[in-house]
């Protein structure tokens, strides 16, 4: 990207950004002028009329009606200009064109989920076509979130039980940072997402494959999903506890549940924890309400398991070979590494 942004503002990546920046800059420079004036007179008067002796008797100043009126009227006019300008940008930048491409957005603690018109979904990565207006229809499943893309100058809260919208048209292909700007709890500051703007052809291709990754080996696919599905917001891979348990040092361990049972963390339990996280909660994480991921494919689940095994040093070349073989010969559901995620496949309670 050529545009590096200015001292004050990030790069303008959407078609409406320049309108908002123009007003920002107008107010900025008007403020600089006012500020310079106030500061100048403040310092000048403080110096010029400084008290030389405590017996100083200043000259009486008669109030001037016109002077006082001038600083009622001039600021009033100035702020009205700013108001109309802000109003105009708000309207022009706030109403989506009729032909907007509509994507549904769901905010939940602490990830963004995107659903495209053809039913494809993604988490954490919002793919959009460049040069077309895109409208996001947003809601939330738990608390308030706010969808903010600094480079596009757009922001709106995602409110439970309501639909709110933002729209934008990306000028250039690239990746753009998304923040959550409404405080939503522990991992609020890591509720990131990325807008990935690609040309229409690539976008259509992506829509068909639903995110790709078919050609990746399982652990790499898992690694990709770890950030794509925003697992990293709550689970560390370095052993430190975040909102959820770390993925390092837990594989193969006996995990005590909050309700008294326990299970060994194996492929079964891991998959259950992904598709039905509330079924068995590990002690100490009772309040970390992890959202369910029922839409992941078997291969994606296998990838996450493989990735967890890999970072725990439990992923050997033989496993890789077996996985590769099953990938090429059988449907992913038959993958030896991952039994089907069946709610009936309860982990064995201790004793």
């Amino acid at each position, binding site marked *: 990207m050529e545009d590096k942004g200015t001292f004050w503002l990030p790069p303008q990546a959407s078609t409406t950004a320049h309108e908002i920046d123009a007003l920002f800059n107008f107010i900025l420079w008007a403020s600089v002028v006012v500020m310079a004036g106030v500061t100048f007179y403040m310092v000048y008067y403080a110096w010029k009329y400084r008290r030389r002796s405590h017996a100083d008797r200043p000259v009486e100043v008669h109030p001037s009606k016109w002077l006082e009126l001038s600083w009622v009227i001039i600021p009033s006019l100035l702020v009205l200009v700013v108001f109309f300008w802000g109003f105009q940008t708000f309207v022009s930048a706030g109403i989506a064109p009729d032909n907007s491409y509509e994507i549904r957005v769901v905010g939940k603690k602490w990830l963004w989920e995107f659903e495209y018109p053809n039913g494809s979904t993604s988490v954490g990565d919002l793919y959009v076509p460049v040069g077309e207006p895109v409208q996001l229809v947003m809601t939330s499943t738990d*608390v308030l979130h706010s969808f903010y893309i600094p480079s596009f100058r757009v922001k709106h809260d995602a409110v439970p039980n309501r639909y709110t919208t933002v729209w934008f048209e990306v000028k250039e292909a690239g990746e753009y940072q998304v923040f959550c700007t409404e405080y939503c709890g522990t991992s609020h500051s890591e509720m990131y997402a990325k807008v990935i703007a690609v040309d229409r052809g690539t976008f259509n291709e992506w829509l068909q494959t639903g995110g790709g990754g078919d050609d990746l080996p399982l652990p790499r696919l898992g690694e990709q999903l770890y950030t794509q599905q925003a697992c990293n917001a709550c689970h560390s891979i370095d052993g430190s506890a975040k909102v959820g348990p770390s993925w390092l040092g837990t594989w193969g361990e006996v995990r005590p549940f909050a309700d008294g049972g326990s299970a060994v963390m194996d492929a079964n339990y891991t998959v259950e924890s992904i598709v039905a996280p509330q079924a068995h909660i590990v002690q100490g994480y009772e309040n970390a309400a992890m959202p369910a991921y029922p839409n992941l494919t078997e291969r994606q689940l296998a990838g996450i398991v493989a990735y967890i095994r890999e970072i725990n040093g439990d992923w050997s070349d033989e496993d890789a070979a077996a996985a590769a073989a099953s990938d090429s010969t059988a449907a992913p559901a038959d993958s030896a590494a991952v039994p089907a995620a069946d709610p009936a496949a309860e982990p064995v309670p201790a004793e």
Partner: protein
Amino acid sequence: MSTVATAPVRTEPATRAYPPGHEPVHHYLLEPGPGPDVRGFARVWPTIKAWATTVDHKRIGVMYLFTVSLFFAVAGIAALGVRAELMNPGSDFLTADQYNRLFTFHGVVMVFLFIVPSIPASLGNFALPIQLGAKDVAFPKLNLASYYIFLAGASIALYAIFTGGIDTGWTFYTPYSDTTNTAVLPMTLAVFVAGFASILTGINFIVTIHKMRAPGLTWNRLPLFIWALYAVSIVQILATPVIGITMLLLAMERFLNIGIFDPALGGDPVLFQHFFWFYSHPAVYIMILPAFGVISELMGVFSRQKVFGYRAIALSSVAIAMLGFFVWGHHMFVSGQSPLSSIVFSVITFLIGVPSGIKVLNWVATMYKGSVWLATPMLYALAFLFLFTIGGLTGIMVGAIGVDIHLHDTYFIVAHFHYVMMGGTVFAMIGGLFYWWPKMFGKMMSERWGRISAVVAFFGFNMTFFTQFVLGSQGMPRRYFTYLDQYHDLHMVSTVGSWFLGLGLLMVLGNMIWSLFRGKPAPGNPWGAATLEWTHTTSPPDHHNFHRTPLVTHGPYDYDALFAGDGSGDGTGGDGSAGRVPGMPAPVPNPEQGGPQEMHKSVDLGLAQPKSKHD
């Protein structure tokens, strides 16, 4: 040689007769001490009891001052902790949950326990009745009651903080506050209870201002500090019940599962924001209006000039108080309120910018052809002017809807309201403290360290918060525990700035403590001010403020009345010479004099300045 017993030597001049209870050492801070045979706890008990049950507005003001300063210190330390954690991305010494509790603690304590009561309850309680020429507020016992209600609210808040804390941010937005398992219920109760203290103080002030002005003190002669407190009191009475009701509804929702705000129960989370800001935006003016009042006093006294546009400043306070009720929606431009309401709220928001602008320009104009004395209070007042103007102008920025969409909930907002609240209210309060301190405690603070502290705090403040404007407009969201690397440098600068700011404030604290023990005794009118608390009573004042009700013959900033030594008139004020005193010396600050104040008839009559060599 002679050992003849003589009568005790009179140390006081025999010509000077004092009314009983008005002996030179008699002032509101001291209790008559017990005899030397009383030892141990019994020695201090009468003092404790006298202070705990006092209905003297001055003592209540001092107790408030001590209490809110304590909360300011605690919440300020929390702020330093927040900044320290933000120095680097990732977790330095706090976890995300601890960080969320810490910034909430900072916000809740600063807003509800410090800044809302700060100036009105401490400086206001102390100075308002004296500036009015009254013996006390209209309802002294109610005044004490409101202090204890405030203490009760504060205790509940501390209970909430020490039993798990609260992590919702000071705004308690639903549905997060419905679902978090932290101590939301006790905290809402605390806000509910502390609100009553605010309401009762407001009622007390309004009645006092209406009914207890000294003869001659017309509305056009009211000091601007009084006008500001009057406007604030109106807002306190009208707005505070709304936050009480809101907190009650929130508690009912959590306790009884009645769906009001929680969408899971069929409620509307945006409704909470309407309720909350219906109080909290006027509350912003509860926080800043008293500061306007203090600054008006300081600009007048230290420029020795009539405050320019007195009436405009007085009425703009009232205008701000009224308009302040109709702008709450500008906190909700991106929250899902209708675009039409956003537009209406935006236009009213701009209108409220005008009276604030008028005040700033009038204050600057006050210095014109004055005699500007750059004493510590004036330095703080000038710092206020600079910082508040930045805060106000950035308010225009975030009031423009299109721009606000980009800036909402970023560090730009954090910087904006810190410029108004901290750079505005806190700097004004410190200025006011330096100004009224001699009157409150009868001791002068160190002028040198006062000036150094003003410079250090000003520098540290800008370093801390100006960087946050840039952070915010570059997109850094607020209430973030960690952040992307691109924001690292500015966060680092901001954190280092916070240390300078902390150092500056520490100097102020040190100066206050030092002055109590080592400060030079204050003369009655060290600044040469013309309002009643300086011209008609001693430092510190008598229990009942004045020996006789003062007769007010001139405006609050008519400094020439203090100077008129041309010998014309008989000095009674009855001939239109407005209380001019023949041969009256200029009010020269003279820290060499002072000590226990002597009262003279002419002081009572308002004909002389207390405590000068000629008294």
